């Protein structure tokens, strides 16, 4: 199926992915010190490859600083890759930047990126012009979008009085003005209250149903689970796992998880647990006063007493055993030692 949009027909050969990243790399040069400038090269993205098919909602999941935003900025032409290549709708993001920009929408999280002193309507009008939305269609399009993101009645107010959630919804509307074929959403729910975030996820799901191809970055696992068709987990600038949420769960469903509530858990004990036979990985999560030790156990192994034994001298609270969740898969992926990367 070929969809039309305001900028005309978008001829993407069928069967070709809408977004394709091939061995994408980006390093930053940072300078420190005033007098003796020390140059340091930081590799933010080290060889990321993935394809996104038409109509797919693809999640890039990873902790802060994993390289999600850098990857997205290369795809939307704001950053030049230092290695590898990427194309969107068949256009190269370096050589064909303007063509790429015409067909993509970009929305980032947080409350910046709006003209505070203009009304929501004026913000949308401005960007409608910048995206070349034909004047005749502008009014209707803006009206529809304002309604879709639930800002009807407030659109004539200045943005400076808007809450974070309202700003974020206005951002979404802005990103959709030119009815882009592909949407890039960079941590759109960051900093919004739970109700607002849930509404926003609803909006994203609707967009997916409308057939948009979406790349979503997030560090909320449940968000990726709820929305995405496919997830790539990125850590230290590399993709460490890719698949459907079910695939990723599969990786850890064999076996089970032991959770031990402790108080004042030293790092050495965690290391000791990691070395135990039958333990696949161990991670610590702070919960209020307590540290919960989450131990992934290999199928068939029984490690509870061994684990408790290596916690000698540590105050131990509740101990429980449960089935693994996607979150466990994620925690395991992002907290394991990087395979080939320098420490």
């Amino acid at each position, binding site marked *: 199926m070929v969809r039309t949009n305001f900028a005309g027909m978008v001829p993407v050969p069928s069967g070709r992915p809408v977004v394709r990243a091939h061995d994408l790399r980006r390093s930053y040069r940072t300078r420190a010190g005033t007098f003796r400038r020390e140059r340091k090269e930081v590799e933010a993205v080290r060889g990321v490859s993935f394809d996104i098919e038409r109509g797919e909602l693809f999640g890039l999941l990873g902790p802060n600083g994993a390289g999600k935003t850098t990857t997205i900025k290369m795809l*939307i032409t*704001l*950053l*030049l890759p230092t290695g590898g290549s990427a194309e969107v709708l068949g256009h190269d993001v370096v050589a064909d930047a303007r063509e790429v*920009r015409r067909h993509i929408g*970009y929305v980032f999280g947080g409350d910046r*990126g709006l*003209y505070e002193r*203009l009304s929501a309507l004026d913000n949308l009008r401005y960007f409608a012009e910048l*995206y070349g939305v034909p004047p005749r269609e502008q009014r209707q399009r803006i009206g529809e979008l304002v309604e879709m993101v639930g800002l009807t009645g407030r659109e004539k107010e200045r943005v400076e009085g808007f809450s974070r959630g309202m700003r974020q919804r206005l951002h979404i509307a802005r990103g959709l003005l030119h009815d882009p074929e592909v949407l890039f959403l960079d941590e759109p729910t960051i900093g919004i209250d739970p109700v607002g975030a849930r509404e926003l996820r609803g909006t994203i799901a609707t967009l997916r149903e409308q057939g948009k191809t979406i790349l979503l970055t997030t560090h909320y696992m449940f968000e990726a689970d709820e929305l995405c068709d496919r997830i790539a987990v990125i850590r230290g600038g590399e993709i460490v796992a890719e698949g459907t949420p079910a695939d990723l769960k599969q990786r850890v469903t064999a076996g089970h998880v032991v959770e031990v509530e402790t108080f004042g858990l030293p790092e050495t004990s965690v290391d000791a647990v990691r070395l135990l036979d039958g333990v696949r990985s161990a991670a610590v999560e702070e919960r209020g006063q307590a540290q919960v030790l989450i131990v992934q156990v290999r199928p068939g192994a029984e490690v509870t007493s061994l684990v408790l034994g290596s916690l000698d001298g540590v105050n131990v609270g509740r101990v429980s055993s449960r089935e693994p969740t996607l979150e466990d898969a994620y925690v395991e992926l992002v907290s394991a030692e990087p395979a080939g990367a320098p420490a």
Partner: protein
Amino acid sequence: MRVLRLVAVSYWLHLKMIAVSVFEGVFQVIWPIYFATVAFLLYGRSDEPGVLVYAGLGAAVMGIWSVVTTTASGLLQRERWLGTLELLVASPTRFALVLVPITTAMASLGLFSLVSTLLWAWLLFGITVPVASPLAFVVSILVSVFSVALLGFLLSVAVVRYRTAWAMGNLLEYPGWLLCGFLVPLTLFPSWVSWISYALPPTWGMQAIRASAHGESPWLDVVMCLLVGLVYGVVGALLSETVLRSARRHATLSLT
């Protein structure tokens, strides 16, 4: 057609934004009036006929120059703080077409300054500026505004790498007042200095405005003003592409 509309809408919205900020707006108008007042007092002691009209016209136009030099240099920095710079760059519109309407809106603020300085001169110093050919006068002023805006566009992209770019305004405001023939006749300067003067669009604009006020033909000066401005615009357009490429290479667009 689309470009015209884009320019008009962007111009209008940015003008709205600038005007909303009371302090930016009001103070930009007041600031040149201080210098105008000194100029009126100073020239008021001279016996030469017509010298007050000369000072009144010059002081009125000064505001266009100052508003652009002081605000355009910080333009990209402000967009960066707002977080909109990346969005502007990510749009398919050429960067020059994004920025020129903004600097034109800034230059237009100078029109308020122009009117209020003329009123100030009239109310407090009894200086009336006779305008022999009003149409030519208005055209001269509008062309001056646009040319200065094009210079402001070049300025805004030229200083993008400096974190303290807003201070560049201080570096340019006074020299422009000195060199563009607002309050000091160019004939007082050594000839190498007048070369600098003629490379600045307001010099031609000022000559056109004076000529049309006196009933002489301003058109050669108007055309020169526009041409000099366009040169700045073209250089700015070329530079903006280079700057953007470098920003994409060095990751200096967001700096959050």
